């Protein structure tokens, strides 16, 4: 499937999806509430078959947060990037996809640990790198650690 078809496919699933142009992969921005349904569809639809989630990460923007899913289909050999936009920075929540791709289990724990994004229905959502007692989410842009961080 080429990028145009994929774009149509995603638009059919989520009419509210936004697309970023001129990127390396097809880049779709979808609302956070749709992520589980679109992921399931992308994984199971015989036309897309995105069975390999090779990167999952979060980004903190001043007014919203994103969880970014890099997908590849190992059979059909095409790529796409789904960005789930979470509007709340105070209480960010999104559905887990680790029932669809097992690798998401660790990656989502990492994103939870460093960004504070809560993944609903995640089987074991704990901090992965930092202590359970750690205060704050270090990869957020407003994170302050006067002891360990040197301000430039």
């Amino acid at each position, binding site marked *: 499937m080429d990028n145009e078809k994929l774009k149509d496919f995603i638009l059919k699933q989520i009419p509210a999806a936004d697309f970023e142009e001129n*990127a390396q992969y097809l880049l779709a921005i979808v609302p956070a509430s749709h992520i589980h349904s679109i992921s399931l569809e992308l994984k199971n639809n015989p036309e897309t078959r995105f*069975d390999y989630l*090779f990167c999952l990460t979060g980004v903190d923007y001043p007014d919203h947060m994103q969880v970014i899913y*890099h997908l590849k289909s190992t059979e059909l050999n095409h790529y796409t990037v789904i960005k789930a936009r979470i509007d709340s920075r105070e209480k960010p929540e999104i559905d887990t996809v680790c029932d669809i791709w097992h*690798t998401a289990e660790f990656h989502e724990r990492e994103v939870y640990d460093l960004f504070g994004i809560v993944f609903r229905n995640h089987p074991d959502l704990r901090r992965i*790198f*930092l202590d359970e007692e750690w205060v704050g989410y270090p*990869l957020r842009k407003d994170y302050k650690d006067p002891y360990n961080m040197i301000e430039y």
Partner: protein
Amino acid sequence: MKEIEEQEIQELESQEYFINMGPQHPSTHGVLRLVLSLDGEIIRKVEPHLGYIHRSIEKMCEHDSYQQIIHLTDRMDYLSCHMLNEAVCLGVENGLEVEIPERVKVIRTIISELTRLSSHQLWWGVMGMDLGAITTFLYGFRDREMITDIFEETCGARLTMSYNIPGGLMFDIHPNFQKRTKDFIVHFKKKLPEYDKLLSDNVIFRERTRGIGVLSKEDAISYGVTGPSGRGSGFSCDVRKHNPYSAYPKVEFREILREEGDCFARYKCRIDEMWESLNIIDQLIDNIPEGDYKVQTRTVIKLPKGEFYQKVETARGEFGVYIISDGMKSPYRLKFRSPGFSNLSALDKMSRGCKIADLVAIMSTLDLVIPDIDR
């Protein structure tokens, strides 16, 4: 009476206990901590606890310039440092849209393959040691020594080389580089069959690894297990084939795939990969084109606004650098997709029902480098 007996039996059967394997343990290769639920010697559950050397490299990168990021990647997967350097450089070069000279591409590829070889040699030695054959460790290091000497002469360091810079290489290759590399190939082609004699063909080794820690292809894809570990399960994931970079489009090599998905398949994949690496170096070492060893970039590199994803194949699997740039001198967000992190997530799946000794074998064949996992 009978009820009581049944109750007793049930109580006896459900005696699970926990063992902390690590953070200081000889076979977790660093500071990985595994909490094992055991039933006798049989593993019911493995729960990795990470973060003992989490250094927040991603956060540090958000404050560093693109040149400065490179030396941080050295410290993640120190055994395939050159490939990680290369990943960042390729990502930045992609963003800057500079065309790098052929010479740089070829040298990068040769050094990448040498790094892969040295990583696999160390892995082979440690794999033997984990299974109780301590001598392999020394033999692995003996052959690795020649490669580190090559690196030291050309790149200036043995392990954390920082040989790449955005736009090319730190120095040109040393005049002795080609000769030394050829010497090494001759030497190693003699020594590599010894690896088979000592370990691969050994009946104890085969019994210890065959049918242990089986990971199906579907699971490998779902868990994102890449590199030789994934290819041992039949998951064709070699970035050098699927998304070729540097000089890989020009060379001929096989992607090693095996179907069994057990420890032995993963082991054999790595051994065969060493032959392929030798093969790649053989093709390139005499054909290093003349030219510049770098293109001049600005002192302050500013990537255009946008995002860039660059994959490379490290010794452990698919390494990704995901740069989100907002046009400033440091990236807005930089994510390292490290192969070890995903590979580790499949450990629980693979090792349930195995014995403690098998867990050690499985971990060895996953070839974990803890800084790569923790970052």
